[in-house]
């Protein structure tokens, strides 16, 4: 089969499995997850085939002319809207990590939802399983985890989600990309609210949905504006140099802030990204999204969906950078640089003070995405893409690892039966490294990658590249943004390393701080296998991005990655040749090692019942961090309260009750009176009697003529015959004789 047709087929298996599971097999758990995992594996296989073919084609060549095939979808006026699939280097990279992480997470889910365990004693649909009690032959009961009640539904949802992600990756225009984007939004809503009987989960789901909606609306605006200008949304059209020129030259509608059209579009689409990948003003949904099952957190909120935002920005980077050569940055890029850098630091600080193992990861995700956005802001989209890929791997790894930890803790909780111990609170853990070694090692690898442990882990290389880009923007082009970004991200990276270390220490090191932690034990192979695989990538994924002239010594062309993604831009905007400099290297070394060191020092002997060293350190500022700078409360106080006030008072009381209802009621009253007049003066005397007359007369007529109906067919036929003859004769006379 040609690669194009493979691309067409690529997203389909998860979709099919979604429908099959929802419609047919949802009663059968084994069948359902078999179908789902099978579909994921099939897509993975296709993806790998495509990947290999792409490598054979050679990236540069692929960049010149990507695999692409399109069909006319819906006619708009005299032009048909085309949808299609395409695969260029960026798509290849995205496809690679999406395929791997998705498959891994599918496999992981079977274990995470306790497949093969008995039904729970008092499990309800929509609540996490509470465990089932078994009595072994020796007669004493013990509690084991019970299988998820909505098992099949879960697989249906993540299948649909995988479809959305694949669609987004292979689509060759912004519209289908947006479709996949929205599908993922829906799935994230469904999956965050997967345990919909928990009020917190419900709230989180709604919150996530609403927040991302804000972004999506702006994004849709941007799409519409773009389409109205460029007349198409397919990449090859809108990224063609002439289109970009046109966009860069035309002023924005209404001269908005003196932006160019490209700038306005870029900013609008950027807001979509801000919502999707949880950048600063709209980041609030992501931590709450941790209410969902851990595989969901890993999949949506680390590996795929939030990266989709960044992916989209990288896609439209030509538009964002349209009009700005090298050196000066376009307004959207400045916005991105600011938002990204700020978010990175902001989220990192929050992450420092969290105790919930998953929330820490959530905030670190936000800050890492901030890294990418910032990198894009200074034009280093290659580094951004690179970091996107590596981050997808190690963050998925971390989430799955945390899920495995939580799972182990739940074992303990079930064992002790003390249900008010939160298995997600790091304060209750400790010393798990001996209980669950595989999880420990893989988690550590992931953590190191996140912290950017030098020279081995993937995170190091990608971050290092971002620093290098930032530095070169400052040093070579004298652009202050470069320095700003470098400093902010440096601090963020420092904190990152620190809280990663803190997390690892709290979770795994030292002695168990609770009985539950003592009774935790390793999770089944279905959960550990993905960990191992992902940790492999978490290390090696970075090696393809080692700079060619690292440490100033010429390593030949070991950097495969630049070649991959550079070809994204139209050719005339060339990448500033990035020569090696020690500053960023030193920075990243210092921040990584330093952060790790501080974390180790602070938490190396942390016992149960101690107060968190951070609290001692930060004192009064700690609660602020713990409460996430009260952003939620702020929103609650401003937006939510305001909108409630508007809907309650303005819309309901004044508008609806007073104006609309009043108007309607007057109309009704007038109409009623008018109608009664008509009834008494006109209807009753005239029409009514006329109708009665008609009816009566018909009745009388029928009564007189019913004698004709003898019920004898033959007489009827005789009458018919008579009439036929009579009328025949008549017509014949009229037509033939009288006619002449």
């Amino acid at each position, binding site marked *: 089969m040609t690669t194009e047709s493979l691309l067409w087929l690529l997203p389909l298996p998860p979709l099919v499995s979604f429908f099959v599971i929802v419609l047919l097999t949802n009663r059968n758990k084994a069948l359902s997850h078999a179908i789902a995992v099978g579909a994921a594996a099939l897509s993975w296989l296709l993806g790998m085939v495509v990947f290999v073919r792409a490598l054979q084609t050679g990236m540069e060549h692929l960049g010149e002319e990507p695999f692409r095939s399109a069909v006319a979808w819906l006619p708009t006026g005299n032009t048909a809207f085309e949808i299609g699939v395409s695969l260029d280097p960026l798509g290849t990279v995205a496809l690679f990590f999406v395929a791997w992480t998705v498959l891994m997470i599918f496999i992981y889910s079977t274990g995470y939802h306790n497949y093969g365990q008995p039904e729970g004693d008092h499990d309800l649909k929509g609540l996490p399983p509470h465990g089932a009690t078994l009595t072994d032959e020796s007669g004493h009961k013990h509690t084991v985890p019970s299988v998820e009640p909505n098992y099949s539904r879960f697989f249906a949802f993540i299948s649909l989600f995988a479809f959305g992600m694949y669609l987004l990756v292979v689509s060759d225009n912004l519209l289908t990309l947006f479709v996949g984007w929205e599908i993922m939004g829906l799935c994230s809503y469904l999956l965050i609210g997967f345990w919909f009987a928990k009020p917190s989960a419900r709230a989180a789901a709604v919150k996530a949905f609403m927040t991302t909606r804000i972004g999506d609306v702006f994004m849709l605006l941007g799409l519409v504006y773009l389409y109205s200008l460029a007349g198409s949304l397919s990449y090859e059209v809108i990224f063609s140099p002439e289109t970009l020129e046109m966009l860069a030259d035309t002023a924005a509608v209404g001269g908005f802030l003196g932006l160019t059209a490209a700038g306005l579009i870029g900013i609008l689409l950027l807001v979509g990204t801000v919502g999707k990948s949880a950048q600063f003003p709209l980041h609030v949904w992501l931590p709450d999204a941790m209410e969902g099952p851990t595989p969901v957190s890993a999949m949506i909120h680390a590996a795929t969906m939030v990266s989709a935002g960044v992916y989209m920005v990288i896609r439209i980077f030509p538009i964002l950078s349209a009009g700005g050569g090298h050196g000066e940055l376009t307004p959207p890029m400045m916005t991105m640089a600011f938002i990204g850098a700020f978010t990175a630091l902001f989220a990192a600080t929050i992450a420092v003070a969290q105790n919930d193992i998953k929330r820490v990861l959530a905030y670190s995700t936000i800050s890492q995405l901030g890294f990418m956005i910032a990198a894009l802001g200074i034009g280093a989209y290659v580094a951004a893409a690179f970091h996107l890929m590596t981050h997808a791997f190690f963050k998925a790894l971390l989430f799955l690892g945390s899920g495995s930890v939580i799972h182990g803790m739940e074992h303990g909780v079930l064992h002790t039966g003390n249900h008010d111990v939160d298995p997600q609170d790091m304060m209750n853990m400790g010393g798990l490294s001996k209980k669950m070694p595989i999880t420990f090692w893989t988690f550590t690898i992931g953590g190191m990658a996140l912290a950017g442990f030098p020279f081995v882990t993937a995170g190091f290389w990608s971050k290092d590249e971002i620093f290098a880009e930032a530095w070169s923007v400052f040093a070579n082009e004298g652009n202050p943004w470069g320095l700003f970004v470098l400093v902010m991200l440096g601090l963020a990276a420092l904190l990152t390393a620190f809280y990663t270390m803190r997390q690892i220490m709290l979770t795994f090191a030292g002695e168990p701080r609770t009985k539950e932690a003592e009774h935790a034990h390793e999770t089944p192979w279905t959960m550990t296998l993905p960990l191992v695989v992902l940790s492999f990538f978490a290390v090696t994924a970075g090696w393809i991005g080692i700079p060619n002239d690292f440490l100033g010594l010429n390593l030949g062309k070991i950097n495969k990655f630049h070649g991959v993604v550079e070809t994204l831009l139209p050719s005339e905007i060339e990448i500033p040749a990035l020569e090696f400099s020690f500053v960023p290297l030193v920075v990243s070394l210092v921040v990584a090692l330093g952060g790790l060191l501080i974390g180790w020092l602070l938490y190396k002997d942390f016992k149960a019942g101690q107060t968190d060293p951070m609290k001692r350190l930060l004192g009064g500022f700690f609660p602020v961090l713990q409460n996430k700078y009260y952003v939620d409360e702020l929103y609650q106080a401003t937006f939510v309260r305001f909108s409630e006030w508007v809907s309650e008072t303005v819309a309901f009381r004044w508008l609806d009750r007073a104006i609309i209802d009043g108007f309607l009621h007057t109309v009704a009253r007038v109409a009623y009176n008018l109608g009664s007049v008509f009834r008494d003066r006109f209807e009753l005397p005239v029409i009514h009697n006329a109708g009665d007359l008609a009816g009566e007369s018909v009745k009388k007529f029928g009564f007189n003529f019913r004698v004709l*109906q*003898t019920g004898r067919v*033959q007489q009827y036929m005789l009458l018919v015959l008579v009439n036929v003859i009579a009328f025949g004769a008549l017509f014949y006379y009229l037509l033939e004789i009288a006619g002449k």
Partner: protein
Amino acid sequence: MIPLSWYLILAAALFSVGLYGVLARKNAIAILMGVELMLNAVNINLVAFWRYQAPEQVVGQVFAIMVFAVSAAEVAVGLALVISLYRRRRTVVAENIDLLKW
């Protein structure tokens, strides 16, 4: 040779005879027989017109065949009706079947 008129007259006569049967016979089955005769008259007309007007097209024969099918169906249903009628009311005389009168 035979002019078309003869066939037409024959058909008309057969039709009238069948009509008489339909109108005059008591027995429902006999009425159906009359209907059959009328259908046959129609067929004769069709075939005669085919032969005399458009012998190069098969349309006449085709429609004669349609008439065959129709009459077969008509007889099947009609006789079924008559038989079930006989089962219920022990009569097949058309005049006694007058439930539809006022």
